[in-house]
């Protein structure tokens, strides 16, 4: 059986010349060929490119000129990240033949770090409409049980990482699109601080809510990936011109002395989570306390306030992006995307402005609440993954989102798997830090993973002998 490595494990073995990037890549390709007909994680596999990248990485390693921990690591990009000469569709008929001339900034940065491009990954249409069955490509499915939903919109990245087809990948998060699939696929995913990671060359959904970030099996792997994508980029108007922190060196230092706040009303009353999700969060808090952290309860405005504000802003901005096509090619979109987005045509300018004013008060509220905390804990999804055919069309509007408060406020937030629920599918928690304190998130998330041992169990599919 071919082992599935984490990025940190693979990097050490590659550096010691005990693991060949070419063999590592061939293992991922074998898993992709065995399982992607079921999972539909890839829109466009790039096998030849992957093998060429892997051979180049191997040559560098053998010559003693390896670039760093991502050299020779198989990755994939959500199909809203522009890739030069490689089709980038947004999982939409409207961009079915779109071949960008330039890489997104983050795609270029990961390539320069030596990553191996395995292909382009499924998304919900334009990072919003899914799971859809009326698009040119089917929706991704959950490796823990392919009858079930991955969440979205970074659905292909979640499925591909959890099944071991790639070791890490890109996602984007406008209302929870990294943390949702990370949660339901049982992996780690971080939405960094607004402005930390360039969005240049990533198809826009909502300018002031969009964040780009990494997804991987472990928190430590997310840190390694984020280190290679963060940094100022003049091509992104929202990019923060400040030095990038070291996200890796505090990993392993534990949580002793940390102050951890729990926003219990978010996941107990505002959007009550499943018993297994609640057990996972409470267990994590016990772990943190045992490791020397101080736990306290934090109260914020009802989550529905954050949700309404975020949804009005997101829908208005996304409508503005898509309005020309909505007016001329409405029925070329999938039903879910076009119906969800069409509502944006009925929001007045003054509603948008009022939402932006309210956003400021909620940002101030969160800043005040976090003055006494290093980390906040909440849930990232309310339940285990539902069946993919039973996802409600208006689900994102019916209940307040557990993730959108931190898109609205720009704070860094990460989903961390806490185990499996009653249905054998992953459950998770959400960790939130102060702006640009991603290193603290990684330090705390890693301490939990090490203490709880949740990273030992993979989906059976990832461990199955590859066919052929």
């Amino acid at each position, binding site marked *: 059986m071919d082992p599935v490595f984490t990025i940190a494990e693979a990097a050490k073995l590659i550096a010691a010349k005990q693991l060949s990037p070419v063999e590592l890549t061939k293992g991922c390709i074998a898993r992709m060929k065995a399982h992607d007909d079921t999972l539909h994680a890839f829109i466009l596999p790039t096998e030849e490119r992957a093998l060429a990248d892997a051979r180049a990485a191997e040559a560098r390693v053998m010559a003693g000129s390896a670039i760093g921990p991502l050299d020779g690591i198989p990755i994939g990009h959500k199909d809203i990240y522009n890739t030069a000469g490689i089709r980038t569709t947004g999982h939409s008929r409207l961009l079915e033949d779109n071949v960008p001339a330039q890489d997104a900034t983050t795609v270029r940065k990961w390539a320069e770090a030596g990553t191996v491009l395995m292909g382009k990954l499924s998304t919900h249409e334009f990072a919003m409409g899914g799971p859809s069955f009326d698009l040119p490509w089917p929706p991704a499915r959950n490796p823990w049980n392919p009858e079930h939903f991955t969440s979205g919109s970074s659905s292909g990245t979640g499925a591909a990482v959890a099944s071991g087809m790639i070791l890490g990948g890109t996602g984007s998060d406008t209302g929870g699109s990294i943390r949702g699939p990370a949660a339901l696929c049982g992996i780690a995913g971080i939405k960094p*601080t*607004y*402005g930390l990671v360039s969005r240049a060359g990533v198809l826009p959904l909502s300018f002031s809510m969009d964040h780009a970030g990494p997804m991987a099996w472990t928190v430590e792997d997310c840190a390694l990936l984020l280190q290679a994508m963060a940094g100022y980029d003049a091509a992104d108007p*929202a990019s*923060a011109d*400040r030095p990038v*922190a070291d996200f890796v060196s505090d990993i392993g230092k534990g949580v002793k002395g940390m102050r951890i706040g729990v926003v219990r009303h978010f996941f107990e009353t505002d959007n009550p989570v499943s018993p297994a999700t609640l057990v996972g969060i409470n267990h994590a808090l016990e772990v943190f306390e045992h490791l020397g952290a101080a736990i306290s309860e934090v109260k914020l405005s009802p989550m*529905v*306030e954050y*949700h*309404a*504000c975020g*949804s*009005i802003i997101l*829908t208005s901005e996304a409508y503005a992006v898509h309005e020309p096509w*909505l*007016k001329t090619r*409405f029925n070329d979109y999938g039903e879910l995307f076009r*119906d969800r987005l*069409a*509502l944006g*045509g*009925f*929001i*007045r300018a*003054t*509603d948008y*402005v*009022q*939402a*932006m*004013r*309210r*956003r*400021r*008060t909620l*940002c101030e509220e969160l*800043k005040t609440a976090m003055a006494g905390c290093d980390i906040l804990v909440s849930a990232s999804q309310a339940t285990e993954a539902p069946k993919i055919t039973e996802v409600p069309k*208006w689900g994102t*509007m*019916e209940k307040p989102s557990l993730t959108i408060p931190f898109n609205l*406020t*720009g*704070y860094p937030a990460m989903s961390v798997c806490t185990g499996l629920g009653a249905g054998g599918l992953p459950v998770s928690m959400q960790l939130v830090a*102060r*702006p*640009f*304190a991603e*290193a*603290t998130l990684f330090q705390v998330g890693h301490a939990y993973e090490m203490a709880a041992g949740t990273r030992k169990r993979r989906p059976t599919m990832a461990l199955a002998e590859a066919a052929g």
Partner: protein
Amino acid sequence: MKPKLSEAEFEFMVKQSGLPLSPEQKTTLYDAYWMLEAMIERVNTPMPREIEPAHMFTAEVR
């Protein structure tokens, strides 16, 4: 739930938007409009007049 907005008022908004909706699509969106309507009401609750829009949150230095 039904929207507070009448179907005639909704029809006016559809025309104003310029979206080429079929009758079935209009019905679907009208039936879902109450959720958006509730959000719009929520963001329009009174605020002190000096509160300015958030163009960017204030980043703290760690």
